[in-house]
């Protein structure tokens, strides 16, 4: 069985962490072994950290700081945990949660370089898109962001407006993200939506992309 290696990237506040967490749980439920790696070095204080314990109880191997470990570090926290750069030394699936911006994506290079392994295992880079985020709110703007990330292997439509999300809005997101994917010959991995909305949409969105129901975990974090 080939292991799954996926990194979630995207515009700031696009839902990367939420999607990475949900993807990890999806794989756990299938009986797979999963490690979730927090690589948000751009904004180290607003990451998976507060969720670590809960996710571990659900069976995920979480590589992230624990809040207790960072006491006294304040703003000077060393955001990259020492063990994290050897994250690939794990016999199971790996899901990476990357910080926003180009530098967030580049952090993967550190992981790859330090693994010391010769065999080139491809980490699939999946960009999470919410079309209500201003900088990914139109086809040209999403194209520009894909270009900034340099390397993207698939897109996820994660369009929502928090409490005000409607099915119509999610479908609008699906149409726009699919248009971008076509232009770039990339797959749309899925449309993700909160469980109740997802069940109302059905198995596929209006563009025929798979719908993945997700649950909110990040609200348990500080943000």
């Amino acid at each position, binding site marked *: 069985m080939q292991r799954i290696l996926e990194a979630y990237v995207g515009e700031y506040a696009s839902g990367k962490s939420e999607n990475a967490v949900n993807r990890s749980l999806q794989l756990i439920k299938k009986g797979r072994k999963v490690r979730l790696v927090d690589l948000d070095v751009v904004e180290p204080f*607003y990451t998976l950290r507060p969720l670590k314990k809960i996710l571990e109880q659900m069976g995920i191997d979480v590589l992230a700081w624990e809040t207790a470990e960072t006491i006294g570090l304040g703003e000077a926290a060393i955001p990259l945990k020492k063990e994290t750069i050897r994250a690939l030394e794990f016999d199971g699936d790996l899901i990476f949660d990357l910080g926003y911006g180009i530098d967030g994506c580049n952090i993967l290079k550190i992981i790859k370089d330090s693994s010391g392994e010769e065999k080139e295992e491809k980490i699939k880079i999946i960009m999470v898109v919410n079309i209500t985020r201003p900088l990914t709110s139109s086809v040209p703007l999403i194209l520009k962001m894909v270009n900034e990330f340099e*390397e993207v292997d698939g897109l996820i439509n994660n369009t929502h407006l928090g409490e005000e999300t409607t099915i119509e809005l999610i479908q609008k997101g699906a149409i726009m993200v699919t248009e971008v994917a076509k232009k770039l010959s990339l797959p749309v991995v899925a449309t993700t939506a909160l469980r109740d909305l997802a069940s109302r949409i059905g198995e596929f969105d209006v563009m025929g992309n798979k719908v993945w129901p997700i649950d909110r975990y990040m609200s348990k974090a500080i943000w």
Partner: protein
Amino acid sequence: MITESGGVKMAKETLAGEYQEILNNEKEMFMTGNEVVAWAALAAEADFMYGYPITPQNEIMYYWAKLAPAFGRGFLQTEDEISAGFTMLGGALVGKKTFSATAGPGNILMQESISMAEMMRLPGVWIIQQRGGPSTATVIYSQQEFRLTTTGGNGEGMRLVYSTSSHQELFESTIKAFNNAWKYRFPTFVLGDGYQAKMREPVVLFNPKLRNWEIIAAEPIAMKSGVPYLERDPVHLRNTFNIEEELYDILSGHLADFRRMKQEVVEWDEGGSEKADLLVVAHGIVGRAAISAVKTVNNQGLRVKYFRPITVRPFPGEALRKIVSEEPELKILVAESAYGQLLSVVKEELYGLANTIESYLKPGLGITAEEIEEILVRLGKKEG
């Protein structure tokens, strides 16, 4: 590696247009507070941001640096907040709309330039995303920069400070801040906090001009057109004076301007029961929690009102005093994530009235609607 497609090239060329469309279309967006500020500055036709990194305001710089070039606006990352503040004033001096964003220890360093701005009536907008204090404390949240922002510096606190409680208000108050900074020429602030900076919620961005909002243009204070001496008098500005009376005269003029400005800019939000036994006073994000709590307990039959100052300097003291003086039995609860910074202003504004003032003070700690609700239930009397 994705090669640059036609679509991407097109995106680069039409970026300014795309950004402008976001403002013009008034679509609902899902945003963090820091982003909202950057877009508001763009909408308010700010020209230049001078900034220094500090959490939790970093994304203001991140988004401004990203958006500004498409509109020919500028950004400079300075060596510290002292420099950010003074470079801002240099830009304002020669007629540009300038701003900066900071927090905590950065806010302290910024006070020096703000003091000069106050003396010399140089306009500027400062965005403060409050973090825990004193000292470096936390990068997360507090309301402990209330006093520093409203009355910091070695003067009289002739400043205009908006304290916001939602992203929509943050967007609109930031635009107002730019307008009023250049209209009245007192240092102008948007007092946010780490929660608002990072919190995500829907907001409708708009182009103020399409809503017929006046956008006040920046005028050069020095370096106007014309050859100095030959075609106009040279502009010589100073903040140093030789004699007490000279300073006193200048300050008297500034203070008169400040009092005049107060009449035109004070803003607040009040609501809840028509007749009340209890009034909760809170600002910013705690004000939002207070409103939510008041709504809940009103539904349970408690007679409670809320008062949320939006301009915390100048403070809408007359409005508050009016509410309180009409009901001698009204009990007041002040809630804030600081140890009595808002409370002391409320006490000052209500001086001489006999109403009881209670407080809920949590320096550096968030206050939820549920916490306020509990206190309101404890303090409030049932109707009838």
